[in-house]
């Protein structure tokens, strides 16, 4: 395990970079996914169509293709940002489609009468979602949403590979290819790094799941 201990500082830096990608992508994809889900269930047909189009596009395109389009396509359109920006953007766009579908399934699990009652006391569409439907959808949403989030965390490795660099995955790649360390120990180190993100996340999710199950 010399490969890891020798380069501990690099690994820690990679870990932090991965964490940064993940946190930004988490906030971004949850927010965007929620907005797209609201479009899909809204009473306005153009918004519904837009939401369906969005989900169809990003759920059916490989992440690497989305990332490629962001990192190399957007600059061609005159949008110039860092690789970090494009990488996270691609991950957010891709993940938002899955977040949307998890939230939408949760919304659909709430009996229609709840939304009707909300509307009939004069709440508008967003208020009805916010105060009546979404709180009740939460319980069914948390487990599938958790899977989506953990998949996103692992997908952040693809973002790193795409040129953001400096994250866990690319640190491993650099150490093995450029500096000649043995592959196996290095990638065991990388795997441990990811586990240090996904396992606590999984535990946190279980806590949240238990919380929302009790809260009526």
């Amino acid at each position, binding site marked *: 395990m010399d490969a890891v201990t020798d380069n501990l500082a690099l690994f820690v830096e990679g870990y932090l970079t991965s964490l940064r990608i993940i946190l930004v992508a988490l906030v971004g994809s949850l927010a965007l996914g929620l907005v797209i889900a609201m479009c899909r269930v809204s009473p306005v047909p153009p918004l519904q169509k837009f939401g369906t189009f969005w989900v169809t596009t990003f759920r059916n395109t490989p992440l690497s293709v989305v990332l490629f389009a962001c990192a190399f396509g957007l600059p061609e359109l005159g949008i110039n940002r860092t690789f970090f920006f494009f990488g996270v953007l691609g991950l957010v766009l891709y993940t938002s489609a899955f977040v949307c579908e998890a939230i939408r399934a949760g919304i659909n699990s709430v*009996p229609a*009468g709840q939304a009707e*009652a909300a*509307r*009939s006391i*004069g*709440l*508008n569409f967003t208020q009805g979602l916010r105060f*009546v439907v979404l709180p009740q959808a939460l319980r069914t949403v948390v487990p599938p949403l958790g899977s989506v989030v953990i998949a996103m965390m692992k997908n952040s490795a693809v973002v790193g590979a795409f040129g953001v660099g400096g994250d866990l995955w690319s640190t491993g790649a650099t150490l093995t290819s450029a500096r000649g360390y043995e592959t196996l120990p290095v990638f065991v180190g990388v795997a441990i790094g990811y586990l240090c993100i996904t396992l606590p996340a999984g535990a946190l999710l279980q806590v949240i799941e238990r919380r929302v199950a009790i809260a*009526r």
Partner: protein
Amino acid sequence: MTSRTAGEPLVRLSGVDKWFGQLHVLQDIDLSIDRGEVVVVIGPSGSGKSTLCRTINRLEPIDSGEITIDGQRLPEEGKELARLRADVGMVFQSFNLFAHKTVLENVTLGPVKVRKLSKGDAERRARELLDRVGVGSQADKYPAQLSGGQQQRVAIARALAMDPKVMLFDEPTSALDPEMINEVLDVMTSLARDGMTMVVVTHEMGFARRAANRVVFMDGGRIVESADPETFFTRPTSDRAKDFLSKILTH
């Protein structure tokens, strides 16, 4: 927009048509309801009673015709519609209380979020209303902890908290055990006495006789007959109504 005038009906449907795909559920419906009037809607299953009720606050959009409430035409989806719905109370067969909120929160949600009342004012008013419908002691429970009759009375309080101009009831007692039906009907009867404008879809003929100013009989998406309860129950004119009454009054 017409200004309100004393003689004008509070709710007016004129030439309303509604289709569910191929099914013509409401056919050329004309109905005017005056302030303080209690209209009971009866008719066989599938005749369009629920749909009629739900078009009045536009839970169901209509395909042609016009619906006005207090002289104002029902707006399309959006802010205006939400404002208008706040003025139209609705009580559902299945109660539809907000399952994640306490009884008190169920009643205060609309006043706080729509009417912008302070939480304190809304709660004070909510407790008054809960007392009035006889469930004041249940304020901090969740709907699932209440009996059906109690839930339905909470639902009535929730609707009343918005100070509606008119209340719509769609078979409010059909999901209740027999011993709970009267506690709900009593609340409705007292509302009617207090001058609330009400549209009530129900099979409770006792309530219709006691509280209604008018009975509207629907069949096949049409209003077939419209008369005061005494006339309707003793001397119905249409064969359909006679047939319907003979079926429901014999058991």
